[in-house]
């Protein structure tokens, strides 16, 4: 027993001795594992590592050198600097900071239990935490931290033609101010901050766009004909500048436009309606038990609806798609804005796992999901009232784009109510009521907008109905009547038509919902 204790004591003492001699759990100070961190206060050596052709940086050393710290947090790590915290882990190439993502080319790794990250982590984190930015000079092995103003935003360009409109979409890695200059046969987008051009010049097989050319911070869009004109606007998440180019007269593009200026001054009333057949192409939507696809059902119904609306209301009706193609959700709203539509109605078929569900539902947009956005917008609005806040003013426009539909929520609820009431009149349809939801396709619409779920395609009985001409006709009649009711009500309220006699009028109900409005508070 004594002998055992002695051996244990010797082993423990030896362990302590070994520990005292053991290196700290960092890669050895091999010059290949060292780089220079260059900041305004001087140079400092930092540890780097190489794995599978990637270079990683000791996050704890770099952040500590900048005055912050990195700690273990659950199954990941937490970096803190200037009261800003970023979380990252070895299972994802995305870190998170301030409700935003830090994109890295590869996921971080741990070496001897220490976090090593690609240099892009510092780029994403520092911009948000300190107004600094980072760049990596691989040849000189210098990680340089410098003011963020010198950052050049990456740009990608896409050109696509939708119903005769050529959409030139510039996607930027960071928001940037710009001006758009009209030249003979071309538009030039002049960015006020540095950009990284993806190419020098590229030709396009497009009816309106001949080629795009980058020179410095300018992008020149060469048109195919002098009468091609453009409307311009921008979208968020990611930041995009969009030019819709088409032949004929249009609103002249200018600097990024405030919310209301995207709509021209024109005769008041309902003149243009955009109907949006849900899904399309490879985005088939829900599928019924008999194989009917939502994308086919919505297109067939919307084509008939468009014809009925044009015939009865004598308004212009535009479909966001007229065939079996994919149209991105934000492009559907953009089409409505492009046509300066007075109403936007998206048509879908519903699906549910509960058996026997049936009936129609009509939605308008819920913005309650965006408390931080609303707070930020209010913050920026207040800031922009002060003299020294030009950047805030620019950001505010960006936020307002996301909040565009908010201005029309009251009218959207009236439109949804009218549609739901008329759908309820269809025999055999159980009302599921007017609801609010944060639907992507309704965000950014600068006009009253609603989404109707006609019936449950997952219910075999309703699937059969959806296929039938008789049911389609009744739905078309119901929605047409609803739009007509809304149009009459709206035009009466704004005073361009005389109110009809009370006995023959069914004014649209005041803004009510059959479901409890969502709260804006957290738990």
């Amino acid at each position, binding site marked *: 027993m004594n002998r055992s204790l002695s051996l244990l004591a010797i082993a*423990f003492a030896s362990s302590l001795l*070994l*520990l005292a001699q*053991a*290196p700290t*759990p960092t890669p050895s100070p091999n010059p290949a594992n060292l780089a220079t961190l260059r900041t305004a206060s001087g140079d400092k050596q930092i540890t780097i590592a190489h794995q599978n052709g990637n270079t990683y940086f000791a996050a704890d050393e770099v952040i500590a050198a900048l005055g912050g710290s990195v700690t273990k*947090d*659950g*199954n*990941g790590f937490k970096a803190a600097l200037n009261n800003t*915290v970023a*979380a990252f*882990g070895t299972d*994802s190439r*995305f870190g*998170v*900071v301030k*409700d935003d*993502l830090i994109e890295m080319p590869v996921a971080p790794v*741990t070496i001897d*239990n220490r976090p090593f990250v690609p240099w892009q982590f510092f780029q994403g984190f520092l911009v948000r935490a300190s107004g600094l930015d980072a760049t990596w000079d691989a040849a000189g092995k210098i990680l340089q931290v410098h003011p963020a103003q010198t950052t050049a935003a990456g740009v990608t360009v896409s050109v696509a033609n939708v119903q005769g409109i050529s959409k030139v979409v510039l996607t930027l890695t960071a928001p940037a101010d710009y001006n758009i200059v009209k030249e003979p046969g071309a538009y030039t987008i002049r960015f006020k901050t540095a950009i990284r051009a993806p190419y020098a010049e590229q030709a396009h097989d497009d009816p309106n766009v001949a080629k795009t050319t980058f020179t410095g911070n300018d992008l020149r869009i060469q048109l195919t004909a002098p009468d091609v004109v453009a409307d311009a606007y921008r979208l968020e998440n990611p930041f995009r500048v969009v030019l819709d180019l088409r032949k004929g007269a249009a609103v002249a593009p200018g600097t990024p436009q405030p919310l209301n200026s995207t709509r021209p001054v024109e005769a008041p009333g309902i003149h243009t309606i955009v109907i949006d057949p*849900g*899904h399309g192409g*490879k985005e*088939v*939507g*829900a*599928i019924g038990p008999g194989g009917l696809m939502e994308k086919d059902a919505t297109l067939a119904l919307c084509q008939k609806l468009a014809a009925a609306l044009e015939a009865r209301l004598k308004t212009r009706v535009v479909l966001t798609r007229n065939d079996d193609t994919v149209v*991105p*959700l934000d492009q559907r709203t953009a089409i409505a804005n492009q046509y300066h539509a007075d109403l936007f109605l998206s048509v*879908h*078929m519903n*699906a*549910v*796992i*509960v058996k026997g*569900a049936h009936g129609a*539902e009509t939605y308008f947009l*819920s913005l*309650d*999901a965006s*408390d*931080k956005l609303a707070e930020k917008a209010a913050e920026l609005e207040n800031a922009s009232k002060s003299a020294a806040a030009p950047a805030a003013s620019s950001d505010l426009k960006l936020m307002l784009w996301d909040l565009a539909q908010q201005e029309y929520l009251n009218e959207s609820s009236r439109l949804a109510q009218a549609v739901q009431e008329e759908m309820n009149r269809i025999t055999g349809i159980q009302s599921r009521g007017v609801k*609010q*939801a*944060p*639907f*992507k*396709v309704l965000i950014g619409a600068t006009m009253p907008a609603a*989404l109707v*779920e006609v019936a449950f395609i*997952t219910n075999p009985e309703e699937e059969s109905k959806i296929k039938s001409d008789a049911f389609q006709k009744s739905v078309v009649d119901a929605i047409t009547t609803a739009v007509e009711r809304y149009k009459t009500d709206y035009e009466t309220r704004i005073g361009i038509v005389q109110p009809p006699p009370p006995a023959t009028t069914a004014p649209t109900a005041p803004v009510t919902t059959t479901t*409890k*409005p*969502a*709260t*804006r*508070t*957290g*738990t």
Partner: protein
Amino acid sequence: MRRAVVLSLAILIAAGGCKKKPLSANLNAENKVAVRPVTLFFEGPEMLLVRETRNVALPENPAGALSVVARELIKGSSNAGVPPIFPRDTVVRATFLLPDGTAFVDLGGNTLTQGWGTGSHEELMAIYSVVQTVTTNFPDAKRVRILINDEPAETLAGHVNLSRALLPSATYVAR
């Protein structure tokens, strides 16, 4: 070999009660785990979310517990009569909880990756089952942002905007 010796010593010292604990990928070694009740949300017969309580072994650290709870949700209801909301091949890839109250839940699986063909009601139920479950069990989580395969997703199935974090909403929960 030298690294193995150092690691062994580190474990020995930790076992001896040294304050300098080693870092480990094993959550159970880092966090005290206890069986605790969690509240999960599944779609009930009234087509609204209903609560289901389940006892789950959870680490005390919310950051670690979040993944466990999210995975319990995706497993589905313990009531065989309640069908799963999410496609059966859905997985929880990772979760994060930021100090500002935003929880990130990264989902994956073949169906969500290829494009989930379902209607708006089912999509709302699926998304808010995650939002309600996370915010109910973790008071520090005020809002939830859902990612698909590490990437910011526009929607889960073509309807609900996922480009921002979502607040819990009583609209989708049965009284």
